[in-house]
């Protein structure tokens, strides 16, 4: 993992605004989130360390993909314009959860502290995240085959 700085705030906002999670936020509210985000790049095959600097961050993938699994059982493949790690910002990582980078990945990251600040300042953001989390929880309860078919 390496931190990079390639995007301006508006470029980040343009990218963030494409996510479903932000569709109910105004772009200037998205920009307030964008200001707080950092940029990281992961190599293919890299396992995101839950205790590392981005382990407790919400990730929003710009390019690449990440496989999410629990106890070795894959439950979701997150690609461009999708997020992962949302649960990590709420507390300790879920036991047995693992994120493996499938291909070179460029992502925006929002740390727990910044996430908490964003939630405190923008209730709309909190709602958007809750919606995304609910979707992930729904997916976790479904077999991989069904998810693949849907993809």
């Amino acid at each position, binding site marked *: 993992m390496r931190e990079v700085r390639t995007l301006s*705030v*508006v470029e980040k906002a343009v990218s963030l605004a494409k996510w479903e999670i932000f569709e109910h936020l105004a*772009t200037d509210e998205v*920009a307030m989130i964008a*200001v707080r985000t950092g940029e990281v790049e992961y190599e293919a095959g890299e396992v995101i360390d839950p205790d590392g600097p981005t382990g407790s961050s919400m990730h929003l993938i710009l390019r690449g993909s990440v496989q999410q699994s629990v106890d070795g059982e894959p439950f979701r493949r997150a690609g461009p314009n999708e997020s992962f790690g949302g649960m990590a910002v709420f507390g300790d990582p879920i036991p047995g959860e693992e994120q493996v980078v499938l291909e070179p990945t460029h992502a925006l990251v929002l740390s727990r502290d910044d996430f908490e600040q964003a939630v405190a300042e923008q209730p709309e953001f909190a709602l958007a995240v809750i919606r995304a989390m609910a979707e992930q929880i729904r997916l976790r309860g479904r077999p991989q085959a069904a998810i693949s078919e849907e993809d």
Partner: protein
Amino acid sequence: MALPWQAVRRDERGLTWSLALPYFLIIAAFTLGKIARDTFFLVELPAAYLPYVYIGMAALAAVTTGALGKLGPASAKHRLSLVLALTGFSLLLFALWFRTAGKVPAVAFYLWSGVYGLTLVAEFWLLANDRIDSRQARRLFGPIGAAGVAGGLVAALAATAIAALIPTLVFLVAAAALYFLAAVLVRRIREQPEDEEAAPAEAPAAGAAGGGGLLRDGYVRLLCLVFLVGGVTTGVVDYAFKVVLQGEVADGGEIASVLGAFYSVQGLVSIVAQVGLTGAVFSRFGHRPAANALPAGVLGGGLLALLLPAAGAPWAVLGTRLYDSTMRFSMSRTAWEFLYFPLGDEIKARAKRLVDVVVNRSADAAAGVLLLAVNFALGGSRRQLAALIVVLAVGWLALELRLNRAYPREVERSLRRLVPERAEEPVLLAQVAGGTDLVALLDHPDEQRVLSAMGILERLDRQAVLARAPGLARHTSAAVRARLLAIVAGDGRDPNRFGLWAARTDRELASVSVEAASLPETADRRVAIAAAAGEPESAATYRERLDELLDDANQDVRRTAFRSVALSRDRSRLPKLIDRLTVPRDREAVREALVLFGKRIAGTLGDYLVDPNVPLGVRQTLISVLAEMGGPEAVHSLYRASRLGGDRRVVDGALLALLSLQRRQPEIGLPEELILEDLRQEVERNGHRLMQLRAVREAADAQTRGFLDRVLRERLDQSFRRIFHRLALADPSGRALAAYRGLRSGRRRVRAQAIEYLDTRLPGDLKRVLLPLIEAPDDAERERVAAALFGSEPLTLEATLDQLLRSREPWLQACGIYAVGMAKIGIQRNRALELSRSHDPVVRDMASWAARRLA
């Protein structure tokens, strides 16, 4: 001159024709029947018998309407086609009866025509009301009404041409044929598509029997009264006309010919009024003044008939009758239909039948009784009739003017019914929390709960805190005790009265009051010192320590110090206090302290609010401080921010805070003229934004184009919402917010009613620019309207980006720089780079980005 059908939109043409054609036939047939009716009657009987016939018509109408109310199909379309077919058959039967001639069929037909004519027209307009909402009505009622007028004109011209050649009863057969044809056309009208509005099920139609219930509604009662007095006036005018006619013309064929000519002229004048005047009068003055023109004109005609010499008086009567019937068939007819839109679906149909048939016929009866009384008592001369017309017209006009005031109220009531009340602004915690629960919290052992309750109760009900002072003075938390001390001192009371100093657990507090320096430096002690610094008579040594305590590591100490700054009214520390709003962990405590500071700092907070160098988060918190503080000073500061806030979140927040304050403190007024001026600017901004939206489609890069489109659409939505928030400041009834929700509901009728509210509430100049923007069916039309209203030249992409770069809103500037950088528009480079000195970090970041990109 704009013709009525030019206002009809392309997608409304089918609907317009489907209603206009049957109406043409209905009025043509009705006119033929009326000519036959008057001819048969005046040939067989003297006009003096007419008052008896009017009374008979009213009785028959009451019976028939009751029966029609229970008649078969619930759908307006099927009901109308059935009544049309039945009427056609009845005319054929009368034609057979007239072959034997005589007085009885002449009277019977006069009675029957008075019932079916009004019933058909009422049923037709119920159908039109069902298919058309109040906004479409402004465009569609004109052409539909014109079709009716044309129908009357064509029938009258035909009757004039052939009256001398054919027997009068042929008119009845022709009218029957037209009714059958109209019935077929009505059945072919497409069913109303089911939309999401799911109007409440209409109550069963009621006729005369249901009228009593309806009359409990004040608006319906007023409608009935207006139409009753109007109908009586018209009945007297009609009688005076027929008296003049019978006095001057004796032969039956000649009477039919004169009547045909009269109705032809009436038709011609009506069509000119409908085509040339109605639209212009409605759009310039609205439908209510158009309706007032009828009684005003009748009053004028009555005065002429009364004052002119004997030779001229008949012409005045003729002119008054012509004016009355012309207006009734054109402008007034259309204007009256608007009166039913505000009524709920459950009573609209019943009210319309009640007014159109029962009230109108009762008016004829009342006119009959009145005329009989005048004839018997005074002789019924033409001059007496003219005087009667004048008196009635004055009463009618007065009632119409009363209706002018009642209509907007009814529109508002309808809006309230259609869009239930909902709090539009964030409600402050103090408003939500129940006082009783908060008092109970004062006994809680948990420090945070007690402090929260004290914080709210201090503003809402300080006495409740003071009543619990002895218990609170023994609380284990020093912060609670310190806060109590501050409240007690702030209330100007002696702390000893509450046993605060004597309490066993308040050793630290007691020491503060005696000898603070001798105690060890604990957090509790610093809390106590901070609290003591807030007392009005505190020692200078405590106050001197406030700066240090404001930065204390302990949160309780800082919180107490913030409060003491407020309680000591120390304005020199205000900037420091406001600066601490940037620290998230202190924000709430500082906010509370600022509220405690009170109105004396409202002006200063207002200065911070409009200062673009102050961080957005701080300004947003200051808005909530001022909202909670209340009072004229806070309102003034918030209003200033709503005009000069720059960032839309400050402007929107200030407006919401003002709305919240307006609810809580309705006595604080805002200058309506200023609000309307801001409203005008907001509408203009909205229009310019639409033109910008069109221009950004020129952007070559799809991503830039899509993003700018989203940004500008958001700004349009936000500006649209602001328009209603500003309007709500001028109209505290809450209807403006309901109208906003109605417009966004997607429900056709609710939306129409919301626009009708705006039409009745907005000043003319605002109405003329805002309503076309709202009513435009799609973006393309809205952009076209905006271009026509706010500037004839379409904006280029470059000009739009230049406007964004010069915007007062940092986010729009940032987006402008982004677009310039992406499109590499060199001409805007310098302007974009100038913004590297902006106070806004995002704008500065974007300016650096653009500098790299455009290098």
